[in-house]
């Protein structure tokens, strides 16, 4: 408003890098690497990172492992619910180039075409030390103001939307919503009849 917030950029970037909240959304097989990070041995909370179940208050999205189209729809919907600035950290080789599912028919090979990735950590499940290294790089990018995945998403939204629509078909949100509603409505009718 009346205050020039750019004067406070160093403080705000320090706050952003030292209190990243992770969306508690563990995809694929990499979800098993999360508990060792959070517990006593490689304590992640000393950097202020906390898992948070609601995307509306979280800023870091960890894609841990392979991504199928079904999961990718939910990832895109959750990613768009996060407020800016938001960062994506890709674990493992699967989001990079398909990993061990490089010839599978239903694994996404290049995640970067659908949502922007800031830092990628290679390995077929990277060990916690490797993940900490990646997080350190993420904190450096935030501090220097270069973690701009969210800006890329906003500016190149047509590119991402084109790729998403190619994969799922146009109007995929309403179609997906309606596909699981009849199942629920049938359950509801059975419940009412009883």
């Amino acid at each position: 408003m009346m205050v020039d917030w750019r004067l406070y950029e160093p403080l705000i970037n320090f706050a952003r890098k030292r209190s990243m909240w992770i969306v508690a959304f563990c995809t694929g097989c990499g979800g098993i690497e999360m508990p060792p990070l959070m517990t006593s041995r490689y304590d992640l909370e000393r950097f202020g990172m906390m898992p948070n179940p609601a995307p509306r208050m979280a800023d870091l999205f960890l894609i841990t492992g392979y991504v199928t189209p079904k999961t990718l729809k939910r990832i895109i919907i959750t990613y768009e619910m996060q407020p800016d600035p938001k960062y994506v950290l890709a674990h493992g080789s699967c989001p990079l180039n398909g990993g061990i599912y490089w010839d599978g028919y239903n694994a996404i090979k290049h995640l970067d075409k659908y949502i922007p990735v800031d830092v990628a950590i290679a390995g077929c499940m990277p060990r916690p030390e490797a993940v900490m290294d990646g997080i350190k790089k993420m904190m450096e990018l935030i501090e220097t103001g270069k973690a701009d995945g969210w800006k890329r998403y906003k500016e190149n939204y047509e590119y991402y939307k084109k790729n998403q629509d190619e994969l799922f078909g146009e109007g995929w949100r309403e179609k997906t919503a309606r596909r699981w509603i009849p199942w629920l409505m049938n359950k509801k009718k059975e419940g009412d009849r009883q």
Partner: protein
Amino acid sequence: MIETALKALLILIYATFVGFMFMGIIRIVTARIHRRVGPPIYQPILDTIKLLSKKSNITHGLIYDFGVIYALGATILALMFIPIGSIGVLRAYGDLVLITFLLEIPMLGIMFAAMSSGNPYAGIGAQRALLTMLAIQVPLGFAIVALAEFYGTFSTYEIVMAQQTMGWSIIHLPLLLAAIAYDLVLQAMFGKEPFDIMIAPGEISLGPMVEFGGKHMGILQIQHAIALFAETLFFANIFLGGAVVTAFSSPILNTIASLAILLVKQIAVLLVATFMGAIFPRFTIDQAAKFYWKWPTIIAALGAILASL
């Protein structure tokens, strides 16, 4: 007028800062109990700055915004009535019943804001928060009744003054029972295990907070900080004797001394709550309701009946 406004502003800034320190203390003590290192003690301030500086925010309508602002406003209002040492902006009107009601109103505002988003998780969270609040009213009511009957007055300031001569409240048996019941009620008011069913992270995605983000969540963090401070201060005042220091000759030193003593008492209350919270898992809502309507009610009712004899 200017003096009152200045006092109120100073109390507010002090309360916010110390409230954030309390939230940090909770996190670092829990981490040390888990044999981890834990975040630095000023972590909640960083969280709030991060949340308030988000570049895009969403809203679900007017009530969504207004509920959050109303919650913070009501908490600030509640803070003004509780006597801090010998200063206190509105302490002449700080009634026991009034402060208890005012400490519950922010939850109503948050629930209104959460429900207006139309999220079923928020609905379930609101239902559980309400039933928890219903469950804690019975021992809370009896504890307040015990206090009022023992001292014969409802004004918090007079209770604090009476304790300077009669000693702390908890050395009298009826009030010791009331204090135990009130301490159990404080667990639910802070939202800590075993009664954090209303927040229930991971089970219902933080319950009412699921749709709050960005600056709304920042305002709610500030509200939680001030609410922590106000609730521990209230407990310290009515059961642990408050702090009215008149040893020094200059009023500023007196104020600082009484604030320091109050801080020690408040941290004691907070640590008891944190230790209990780190050990226990979560009760389900009907277990929590049945628990509150059995033992704390019996203890508090016993205290009330003994106090009125």
